[in-house]
């Protein structure tokens, strides 16, 4: 069973590795390298993390930490995960503020944000492909998109209306 120290160090490594998505690196550390979880356990932890609100990878660190070492285990794992990325991103922000007047720095930032936007859209498209077998999923997805992206409605209202409706439809179809 991992100690609090090894939980901290394990997630510290994950935080430093992940670019554009940390989850694959978390899986490698937890399942392949340190063998704290089986592949099946990891999938269960991940699906619970995605189901609950909050950053998925933070939820993974909370669940894994608490499973082995209780509340302090969660704190150790989450601190390990967040510490270095937080320091690095602030250093980058400070550097950017200092050198934003230089054209190459501005160019690099514009390029990165444009490419990262493409990555987000690609993630959405890949997820949407998995939905297209189920017509009412496509409708629900489209309605959410229109409400948030085009009508710019507050997320709280959209979730308060769409989430229960969507879950009720799923429930009703399962019971039939």
């Amino acid at each position, binding site marked *: 069973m991992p100690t609090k120290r090894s939980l901290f160090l394990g997630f510290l490594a994950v935080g430093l590795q992940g670019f554009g998505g940390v989850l694959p690196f978390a899986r490698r550390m937890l399942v392949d390298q340190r063998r704290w979880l089986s592949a099946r356990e990891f999938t269960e932890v991940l699906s619970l993390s995605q189901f609950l609100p909050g950053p998925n990878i933070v939820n993974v660190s909370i669940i894994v930490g608490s499973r082995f070492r209780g509340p302090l285990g969660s704190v150790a794992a989450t601190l390990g*995960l967040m510490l270095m990325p937080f320091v690095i*991103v602030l250093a980058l922000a400070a550097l950017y503020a200092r050198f934003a007047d230089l054209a190459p720095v501005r*160019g690099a*930032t514009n390029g990165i944000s444009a490419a*990262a936007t493409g990555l987000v859209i690609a*993630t959405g498209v890949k997820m949407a492909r998995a939905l297209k077998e189920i017509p009412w999923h496509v409708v629900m997805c489209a309605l959410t998109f229109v409400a*948030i992206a085009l009508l710019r409605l507050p*997320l709280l209202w959209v979730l308060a209306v769409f*989430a229960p409706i969507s*879950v009720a439809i799923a429930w009703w179809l399962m019971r039939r």
Partner: protein
Amino acid sequence: MSTSVLAELARQFSLLSFLAIGGVNALIPEIHRRVVEMEHWMTDADFAQAFAIAQAAPGPNMLIVSVIGWKVSGVLGALVATVAICLPSSALTFAVAHVWDRFREAPLRAAIQHGLAPVTVGLVLASGYILARTVDQTWATFAITAATLALTLTTRLHPLVLLGIAAALGVAGFV
């Protein structure tokens, strides 16, 4: 002044913490709505830069929240915003993780997961749309977004390679 800004950061982001279904990527339109449109803490250009800086750092993509906090109120602001986006949802996760396994076979759990999936996808697609509107102000950036999208869908190139190419194009003065 500064204390009230910190309190407002804490309030806004701890509320968002509970709404972050499908991770922080799905939350970007709402963060943009609150931070740029309602609170006027930053401009569209600032938001695009914060997004870029967060993407250039390793780690979870929620770091955009840290950069926004930093922009609004320095290192303390970054700390407050980051803790605020993590703490409420983490406390909930900690509480639920212990009872969740008992409901492994419950049909309601399956219905919730199955029902939330399309909403989450809609949120991520909305994030892509809002980001594109914020970020793609020129033909060059629009072309980079489109090319990255196409390459991600058709090849197995690592995201970091694509970000690197885009950064290099920017340094070279094409963007």
